[in-house]
C-alpha cells in the first residue's frame, strides 16, 4: 500500500475553533477517500495560531525560527495541502496570508490543495473562489475545483438542505484524493544539490554560457 503525507493548515484564531473542526473533517474524509485508492495517508495539522509570533518574526527578519521552520517543511514537503481559514473582511485572515507569505514562492508549485473556509453566514461563501483560489493560482498550486465553505448554520443544523456540509466535505475530499492518487510521491528537491541549480551533470561553466565555451 502506497503512503502519502497530507499537511493541514488551520488559521482559526480561537480555541476551540470551527475552522479547525472543518479542517479535521476535510482531513479525515480525504484519508478515507485515499483508502479507496489503496493509498495510506498520514496527516499533520498545523494550527497557525501557535506560530503567530514566529510568523511575524519571520516577516521581519527573513528567517523562520526553528519551530516555524519545522512547520514550513511539513507543508512544503507534503504530497497535498488542506488549507482552511476563517473569512475576515471578505477574504482569508491576515495570519493565513502571513504564513503563505513566509513560504518560498515556488514551494507550492504543482501541489494539490483543498481549500476550506468558514464564516458566520453563507453570504461569504464565494470568498473561496474570488479571494482564496486566486492566491493558490498565483502560487501555481493545483487547487481542486470544489472548495468547502462552512457557515455557522452548517454546524448548528442542516444549513443547506440541498448540499449539506457532510456532502460538500465528501466531494472536496474525493477530488483531493483523486489528485493525490494521480501523482507520484512528492520528491524532495535539495536546493544545495548542484544538479538542482546547474542541471544534472553540468558545470558552472554552463551558467557562463558562451563565455566559458561550454
Amino acid at each position, binding site marked *: 500500500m502506497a503512503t502519502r503525507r497530507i499537511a493541514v493548515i488551520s488559521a482559526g484564531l480561537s480555541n476551540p475553533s470551527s475552522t479547525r473542526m472543518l479542517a479535521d473533517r476535510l482531513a479525515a474524509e480525504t484519508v478515507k477517500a485515499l483508502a479507496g485508492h489503496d493509498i495510506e495517508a498520514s496527516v499533520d495539522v498545523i494550527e497557525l495560531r501557535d506560530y503567530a509570533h514566529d510568523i511575524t518574526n519571520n516577516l*521581519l527578519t*527573513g528567517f523562520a*525560527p526553528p519551530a516555524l521552520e519545522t512547520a514550513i517543511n511539513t507543508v512544503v514537503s507534503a504530497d497535498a495541502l488542506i488549507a482552511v481559514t476563517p473569512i475576515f473582511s471578505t477574504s482569508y485572515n491576515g495570519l493565513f496570508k502571513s504564513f503563505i507569505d513566509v513560504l518560498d514562492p515556488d514551494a507550492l508549485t504543482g501541489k494539490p490543495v483543498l481549500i476550506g473556509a468558514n464564516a458566520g453566514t453563507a453570504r461569504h461563501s464565494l470568498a473561496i473562489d474570488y479571494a482564496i483560489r486566486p492566491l493558490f493560482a498565483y502560487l501555481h498550486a493545483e487547487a481542486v475545483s470544489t472548495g468547502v465553505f462552512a457557515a455557522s448554520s452548517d454546524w448548528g443544523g442542516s444549513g443547506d438542505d440541498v448540499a449539506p456540509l457532510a456532502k460538500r466535505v465528501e466531494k472536496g475530499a474525493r477530488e483531493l484524493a483523486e489528485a493525490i492518487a494521480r501523482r507520484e510521491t512528492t520528491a524532495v528537491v535539495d536546493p544545495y544539490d548542484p544538479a*538542482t*541549480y546547474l542541471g544534472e551533470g553540468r558545470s*558552472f561553466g554552463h551558467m557562463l554560457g558562451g*563565455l566559458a565555451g561550454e
Partner: protein
Amino acid sequence: MSEQSGAQAMQFGIMSVSDITRDPTTGVTPSEQERIKATLAIAKHSEEVGLDVFAIGEHHNPPFWSSSPTTFLAALAAQTERLIVSTSTTLITTNDPVRIAEEYAMLQHVSDGRMDLMLGRGNTGPVYPWFGQDIRQGLPLAIENYALLHKLWREDVVDWDGKFRTPLQGFTSTPRPLDGIAPFVWHGSIRTPEIAEQAAYYGDGFFANNIFWPKEHYQRLIELYRQRYAHYGHGTPEQAIVGLGGQVFMAAKSQDAVNRFRPYFDNAPVYGHGPSMEDFTEMTPLTVGSPQQVIDRYAAMREHYGDYQRQLFLIDHAGLPLKTVLEQLDILGSEVVPVLRKELAKDRPAAVPDAPTHAARVKAEFGDGPTRQARPGANRGDNLTGDSPYQDSPAPAPAGAAFGLSRKEA
C-alpha cells in the same frame, strides 16, 4: 611590496554596513559627516587594537552613506599601516565591471596591496533600476559581470561580448593589478547556492554573512562551497578559503551587556521590533554578554564550519555611539581576539591555508623573483591596433606571449 605583516592563519576584523541610525537612548541621529568621520575613527582604531581587516558595505540609499567605498577605503589605507581594507559587499550586479576593475586596482596600488573585496548582489531591489539594471537578472548579472571582472584583471587586452554591457574591443583596464596579482575576491552570500558555486569555480574565497540567520543556513552553503572547490580542482574541501561574519556586544558583566545593548537591539533596522534579543541571540551568532561568552561562541565556529580564514564582526550599527563602539573595539582587541587567535590555531591542520594576503599571493606566483611591473609601451596614438600596450620590466616578455608576461587564463 610594502606589506609588512607576515602570514597569519586567521584574520580578524570588523565590518560596517554604514547605517546612519538614530540612537534610541538619546534620540540623536548623527549627521552624515559625523557618521562618516566616526566610521573612519572606528576603522583606524581597529588597527590600533590589533585587528587585521576593516570592511565596509556599498549602499546607494539612505540611511546608508557608503556609496563610494573605494574613496573611503583609500583614505583609510592612507591613514593606517597594516590594516587590510575591504568591502562587504561591492555590488557586482549594478556596478559596471570595468569600473570595479579600475577602481579596485587603483585602491590596490595606493594601499600597497592592503586590500581585497567582497562581492554581493545588493540589499534592495530599487538599486537595480537606479543603475540601469533589472533585479530579475540579479543572478545572471552577478555571474556575467564577475566573469568580465576576472578577465579584466588577468588579461592586458580584452575582447568581450556579453549580454549586459556594451562589447569591448582591445580594451585595457588600468592600472594593471599591483605586481601582476589580481585583488583577492570573496563572494558573499546569505542564501544563494549559485554564489557558493561561483566562488568554488574560480577558486576564490567564500564569505558567509553569518549574522542574520541561523547557522544551519550558512553551514549548508559553506559545505557546498567546500565540496565544489574540490570538485573544480583547487584543493581539498578543507583548503577552501572561508570567511564569516558575526555580531557581538560585550561588557565585563554579562548582564550589563544585555541591558546596554537591548534598546539598540529592539530598535535596530533589520530585526528590531521582531524577535526578542534572547531568542535572536539563541538562533543566530549574535552574542551579547561577557568577553568570555563571545570567545566561547566564536571559538566554536570552526566546529560548525570547519577551519576558516577570516572573521569579521559587526559592531558599529543600530545607532551605537562612537564612544561605545571604540570601547567594544578595545575589548575585542585586548580580551577576545588574542584568545580566539590561539583557540582557532589549536590543532589547525597544516594543510589548511593561511588567510590570503597580497604578499603571500605574490610569493605563490613569483617566488622570491621579481614581480610584474607593468609599463605602457610608447604611445602610438592608437591603443587598439599597435603593438603591446605594456612593456614589462626588467625581463622582456617571454616568446609567444602577445602582451607582456603570459598570464594564466581563467
